[in-house]
């Protein structure tokens, strides 16, 4: 079709006149000249490499299959999104080297969702209209996941999220009392808000003995959900929520929020949000004379939290056992560093790596050397349901709702400008 | 001049005070059907302020303006609907609309199609639109812009823009037309054409009020002239009366009578030259009048 249109367009311009003949002769001459003049150099380089830099050749005769990624690659959440993309890239490349899916070469295709639902939907549709996409790792934001889930479900495409923490994504709105699986194509490797918030409350109220707690949230899905779950458990444990405040999601001056809770004399702050705000918030609270520990979820567990102003004594919960204790985690970190990515692996890199491994390993199992087709998607999902392995973030396994069964959580504390492990355990609910 | 009928437009004791500054003090005027009333006065005399009071742009601090006995509202849009149309001192056309569209906008007040009708373009709507279009084309022809209806207003020559503004004002079917310096910046030929146009408008039964700096133009045009000085009505009456009033000559014209006379004579000559038709007698006579008046002083 391409050539046809081009030719018709060009022909339109040609009114055959005497001069056209001249032009045609000239053109022909030019072409001939070009052909003759350069033919001599032919064969100067015979092929430009094999096109693959795999050290050991796997059988890739059956073609290429794609692992999709949907994450914010541009905009202000891109640090997290790029960490996810790079980690999936790493996992896919490792899978290629290890011939995890015999007969196929794997490829990563990352799509930007700009952290907005409708762009995420567009990204999901783009991936889902490609029959070679076997699974998608993503999204970062729960609100984007809501628009992506039904689209991928429509094509029966596997989705494994490294970072969605809203419980209702898997278990429905009444997730506590009447859990109901929402999408059988959807899994996640991270812990949900109800676990993390509850575990944080257990620690902060039960172990650290803070009874007057202020809650600050950033109004985003992650932060609000986490803080709500924290609050439920903290009040159950006997703590008093003495004040609440909200900050703008891109704010940097938190004096208004800090001053408004300062009068209530809290002995700890729980922050529902992420480190770019949490770091300065902690520092500004100290500056304004409110020198109490600030605690948050895995959105805070990043070295940049400390760099941005976290003070000693600040706390963060994170899923899984501490990284130092796991060989798989160390292997991941080393491999990531060896790849020399431009961007940091960020908070969800490890989860994304695990999620990608879930996809490729299950794929290898589901195919078992066979051919990929749409009919295999159900097998793939079955394989994921039965997946069990040690990942960079600990045990990766799924329950009947698609949630991670890895309920192990760790509290970290900032000490001497570094993260230190405070306690590890599970939250019973 | 005696009032033979009830006035169309009447201003009674109109005063306007801006933050302690009196711009108008108890100005009273009457305008009768078929009359052309001239309003003159030096800069800052309050002519435009008075105009704005008449058109509802300002609400007079004191006094009232009535149209055929009904008090005029203090909203320009409703004043226009009531039957008083105006032009502006510095032309205020809609520059990116065509001449025809400009006049059609003037027709707005006399059309009734609401948003629903505009949406569906039903038969009644189309009839109304066609009527408006016909009337607008008539008016364009009336002011001498025939064939220019598809031209953007901004692309018209200056004199045509003035005439288009008048056509737009006439499209509102006014009982009273207020012209704010209709000949400002015009050459003698254009001025004469404007004069003829205003006569023609008067002949259609519209009463006209004209503000002008150009006294000669006013004296040659109006049946009745009022002189505003420092917000007060100094003199009013026929051009002859006003022209002869020593206070006017002193306060407003501010120059010796001979000079005025010379100017008027020159104007008459130019006008005669430019048209070469009727109309020469009028200014010449006026000049003579002025001469005698001046002489008697």
């Amino acid at each position: 079709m391409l050539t046809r249109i081009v030719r018709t367009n060009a022909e339109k311009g040609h009114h055959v006149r005497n001069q056209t003949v001249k032009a045609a002769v000239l053109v022909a001459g030019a072409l001939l000249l070009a052909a003759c003049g350069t033919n001599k150099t032919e064969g100067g380089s015979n092929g430009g490499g094999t096109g693959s830099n795999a050290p050991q050749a796997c059988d890739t005769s059956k073609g290429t299959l794609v692992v999709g990624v949907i994450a914010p690659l541009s905009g202000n959440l891109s640090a997290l999104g790029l960490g996810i993309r790079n980690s999936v890239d790493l996992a896919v490349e490792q899978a290629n080297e290890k011939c995890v899916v015999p007969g196929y070469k794997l490829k990563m295709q990352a799509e930007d969702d700009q952290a907005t639902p409708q762009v995420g939907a567009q990204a999901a549709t783009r991936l889902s209209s490609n029959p070679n996409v076997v699974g998608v790792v993503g999204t970062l934001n729960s609100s984007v996941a809501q628009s992506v889930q039904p689209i991928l479900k429509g094509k029966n495409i596997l989705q494994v999220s490294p970072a969605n923490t809203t419980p209702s994504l898997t278990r429905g709105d009444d997730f506590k009392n009447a859990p109901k699986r929402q999408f059988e194509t959807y899994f996640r490797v991270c812990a949900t808000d109800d676990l993390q918030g509850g575990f944080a409350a257990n620690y902060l109220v039960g172990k650290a003995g803070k009874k007057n707690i202020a809650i600050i949230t950033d109004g985003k899905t992650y932060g609000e959900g986490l803080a709500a779950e924290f609050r439920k458990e903290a009040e159950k444990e006997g703590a008093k929520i003495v004040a609440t405040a909200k900050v703008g999601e891109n704010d940097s001056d938190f004096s208004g929020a800090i001053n408004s809770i300062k009068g209530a004399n809290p002995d700890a702050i729980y922050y529902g949000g992420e480190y770019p705000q949490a770091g300065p918030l902690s520092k500004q609270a100290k500056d304004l004379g409110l020198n109490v520990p600030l605690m948050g979820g895995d959105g805070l567990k990043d070295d940049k939290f400390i760099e941005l102003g976290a003070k000693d004594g600040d706390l963060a919960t994170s899923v899984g056992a501490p990284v130092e204790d796991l060989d798989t985690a160390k292997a991941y970190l080393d491999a990531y560093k060896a790849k020399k990515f431009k961007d940091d692996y960020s908070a969800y890199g490890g989860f994304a790596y695990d999620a990608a491994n879930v996809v490729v390993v299950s794929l290898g199992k589901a195919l078992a050397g066979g051919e990929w087709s749409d009919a295999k998607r159900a097998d793939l999902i079955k394989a994921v349901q039965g997946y069990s392995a040690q990942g960079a973030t600990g045990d990766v396994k799924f329950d009947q709702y698609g949630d991670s069964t890895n309920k192990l959580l760790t509290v970290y504390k900032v000490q001497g400008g570094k993260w230190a492990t405070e306690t590890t355990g599970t939250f019973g609910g | 001049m005696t009032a033979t009928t009830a006035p169309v437009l009447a201003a009674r004791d109109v005063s306007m005070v801006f933050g302690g500054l009196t711009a108008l003090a108890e100005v009273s005027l009457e305008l009768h059907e078929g009359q052309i009333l001239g309003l003159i006065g030096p800069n800052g005399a309050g002519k435009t302020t008075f105009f704005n009071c008449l058109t509802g742009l300002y609400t007079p601090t004191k006094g009232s303006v009535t149209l055929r006995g009904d008090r005029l509202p203090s909203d320009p849009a409703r004043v226009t609907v009531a039957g008083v149309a105006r032009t502006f001192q510095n032309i205020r056309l809609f520059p990116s609309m065509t001449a025809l569209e400009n006049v059609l906008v003037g027709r707005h007040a006399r059309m009734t199609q609401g948003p629903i009708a505009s949406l569906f373009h039903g038969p009644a709507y189309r009839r109304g639109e066609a009527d408006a279009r016909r009337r607008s084309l008539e008016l364009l022809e009336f002011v001498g812009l025939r064939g220019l209806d598809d031209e953007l207003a901004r692309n018209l020559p200056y004199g045509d823009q003035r005439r288009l503004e008048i056509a737009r004002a006439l499209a509102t079917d006014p009982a009273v037309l207020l012209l704010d310096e209709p000949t400002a910046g015009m050459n003698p030929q254009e001025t004469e054409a404007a004069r003829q146009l205003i006569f023609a408008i008067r002949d259609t039964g519209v009463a006209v009020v004209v503000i002008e700096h150009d006294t000669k133009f006013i004296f040659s045009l109006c049946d009745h002239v009022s002189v505003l000085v420092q917000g007060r009505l100094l003199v009013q009456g026929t051009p002859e009366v006003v022209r002869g009033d020593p206070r006017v000559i002193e306060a407003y014209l501010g120059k010796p009578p001979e000079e005025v006379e010379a100017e008027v004579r020159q104007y008459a000559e130019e006008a005669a030259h430019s048209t070469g038709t009727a109309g020469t007698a009028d200014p010449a006579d006026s000049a003579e009048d002025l001469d005698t008046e001046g002489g008697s002083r």
Partner: protein
Amino acid sequence: MATLLQQLASGLVLGALIALIALGYTMVYGIIQLINFAHGEVFMVSIFAAAATYKWFIPESWENTWQIALPCMLVGAVLVAVVLAVLMERFAYRPLRNAPRLAPLITALGVSQMLKEIVRLNYPDAKSAINVPRAFIDEPIIITVPGGTVVLQATSVLLIAVSIVGAVILQLYVSRSRMGRAMRATAQDPDTAKLMGVNPNRTIVFTFALGGLLAAVAGVLYGIHLNTVDTEVGFLYGIFAFTAAVLGGVGSIKGAVIGGFIIGVVKTLGGQLLPGGTGYDVVWVFILLILVLVFRPQGLFGEPERVRA
């Protein structure tokens, strides 16, 4: 009581910052009636420039002496911001001076998107927030008031002082100096100003440069006060600053400063006292803005628009 005073103080600090940025908006708007949406990004870039100066351009031995480090940061930020503002004027806005009124607005939005992305993609670690050093006296000032204490950072005091002094100097400059007269003349009627021997292009460039300078000063103060910056601050504070400029009456220097302070105080006190808490603090700012404009359409200190006839 203490809480209210503390909120008031915080509001004034925020207001001072907004006021400094608003000055740039108001001057550019005053002279060419352009909502320079990219002004907020100039502010943002200057914070990054200050941070970069501190981190990479001054020797380590100077880093702990704020008397040296702060001026260095200021120089770096001002250089970058002024060059950026001038380039923007020259290559983005000047070609559009006679274009339809909204074309420069879209250009401004495009430019701000580009600036944001350039910084985000090229400045190390700028994909999320980065840290800016305090580079000033780090001892808080604690004032005892009935019912508690009010804590003020030294940087807060510096911010308020600089914004007020800066506005006064600017006001004097615009009303007294030759360039100031040229600016006012160009603002009122560029064609006539040209006839009077004023070079409108040079005056406009100068105005942009001055706006850039003020943005840079604001940027450095922001950096050392809040110690964090990300690429979104330009938009956020740009909106606040523009709101302040409009609230005070666009074109008025006094108005921009007072508008800035009002916004700062309303934001903090509104978050404290009004229903909805701190989440809705921005809403109160905007509601106030709407009310002011409805009842005083030209802003608090703007020239009332005369009814033309």
